[in-house]
């Protein structure tokens, strides 16, 4: 049976779309199959943020933010306004002196890696974001961070007519040897298969160590000018890295329309799509601690999503440890939109045998295999 393309990509979320584009830019023909079930790309905030909890995450996000700035310019050139790329920057807010010390550490770490940022004192923070309550200790401002509407950005990545990318809407039933079987029983063959289906990847490849981490979001009516930066509490990192239990953190984003996206929550092993009202209340109360004025705003909608989390919080990028011809770009948890560009570059370089932009060992899928030695 003939090949449908050089590479089959399963999943047209932001990671699958970025991988397809990176491979196509290397001259490979790519066929993307997506079941249109939706995933973290469609339900998340689309915050493009440099994270520095470990060197690999910092490198992935730093390189990705550089790529997003180029993509942001390209989207504007293409008139892809629905992508809503906006370099609003991030404010990491400190409640007290201890958190301000953490902000100072973060500033040093980011600047060491060439990432522009500045500390704001209490008054400077209040002047920048009057929505926040008075008396916060200050903030670290990272002006290069941005936001994007990820579902449209994923569509834009696949739409370039100069690239050899084809798309098909179908559900994959099984991954075979350099081929996939679809629900209708038909088969698509290729030189290689890339699995980038987020949490759904575990259904096709049960040995993947992925665990669902549910999140909830609320969006308000339009209040243009009410907020300028994406504002996140410094304690977010603690919340985001808990391995058990349910946690909330203050995280609010100004949409280009003037709407505010309010998060965030993390809950393990709950894949039910319903909003949990008690947890939503806890999340909004957390937000009111930082921005009491939010209580005057009208919330329009609430929804949930599932982050695909790996045991160490880093994605799995590279060859499947045992299945020849199968490549993985999964397990990005809440950072898939941010790190899609560097994920795709790394995966494409690994597949093509090109020079790598950074050490792939911390994200190598084989690191979780039994008896694996780093």
């Amino acid at each position, binding site marked *: 049976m003939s090949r449908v393309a050089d590479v089959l990509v399963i999943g047209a979320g932001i990671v699958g779309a970025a991988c397809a584009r990176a491979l196509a830019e290397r001259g490979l023909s790519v066929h993307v199959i997506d079941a249109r079930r939706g995933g973290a790309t469609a339900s998340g905030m689309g915050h493009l943020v440099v994270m520095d909890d470990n060197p690999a995450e910092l490198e992935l996000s730093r390189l990705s933010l550089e790529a997003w700035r180029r993509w942001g310019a390209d989207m504007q050139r293409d008139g892809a306004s629905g992508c809503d790329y906006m370099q609003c920057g991030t404010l990491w807010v400190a409640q007290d002196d201890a958190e301000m010390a953490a902000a100072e550490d973060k500033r040093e770490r980011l600047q060491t890696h060439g990432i522009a940022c500045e500390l704001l004192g209490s008054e400077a923070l209040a002047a920048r974001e009057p929505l926040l309550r008075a008396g916060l200790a200050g903030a670290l401002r990272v002006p290069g961070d941005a936001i994007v509407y990820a579902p449209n950005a994923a569509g834009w990545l696949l739409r370039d007519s100069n690239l050899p990318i084809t798309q098909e809407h179908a559900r994959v039933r099984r991954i075979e040897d350099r081929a996939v079987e679809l629900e209708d029983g038909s088969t698509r063959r290729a030189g290689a298969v890339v699995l980038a289906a987020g949490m759904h990847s575990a259904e096709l490849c049960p040995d993947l160590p992925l665990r669902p981490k549910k999140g909830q979001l609320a969006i308000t*009516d*339009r209040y243009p*000018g009410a907020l300028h930066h994406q504002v996140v509490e410094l304690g977010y990192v603690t919340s985001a890295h808990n391995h058990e239990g349910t946690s909330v953190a203050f995280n609010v984003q100004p949409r280009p*329309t*003037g709407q505010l996206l309010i998060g965030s929550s993390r809950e393990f092993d709950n894949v039910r799509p319903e909003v949990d009202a008690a947890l939503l209340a806890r999340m909004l109360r957390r937000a009111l601690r930082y921005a009491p004025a939010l209580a*005057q*705003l*009208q919330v*329009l909608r609430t929804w949930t999503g599932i982050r695909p989390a790996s045991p160490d919080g880093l994605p799995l990028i590279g060859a499947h440890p045992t299945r020849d011809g199968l490549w993985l770009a999964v397990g990005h948890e809440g950072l898939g939109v941010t790190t899609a560009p560097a994920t795709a570059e790394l995966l494409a370089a690994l597949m093509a045998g090109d020079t790598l932009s950074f050490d792939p060992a911390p994200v190598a899928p084989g690191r979780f295999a039994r008896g694996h030695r780093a």
Partner: protein
Amino acid sequence: MTAFPEKLALWIDQVPVAVARGTSVAAALAQRPPGVARVSVRGEERAPLCGMGICHECRVTIDGRRMLACQTVCEDGMDIRTGLAETTEAGP
């Protein structure tokens, strides 16, 4: 005789409107056909639809605060601004 006036006087986009006590703001909007409440991001005019606080199509600014017209009962002297009149959106 009741001590209450039969009609309440309020303003919709700075135009005086008289309504019976107990009227919802959504019903007050309907006195000015087609009863536009807001304008969408893409510039489409929107009016109350579900009437039960779910669809959020009827959001207006009342005395400076964004509210749902269908879930709000008219009060004397209310300053109601629809999306048609809002040159600057209400702050928080």
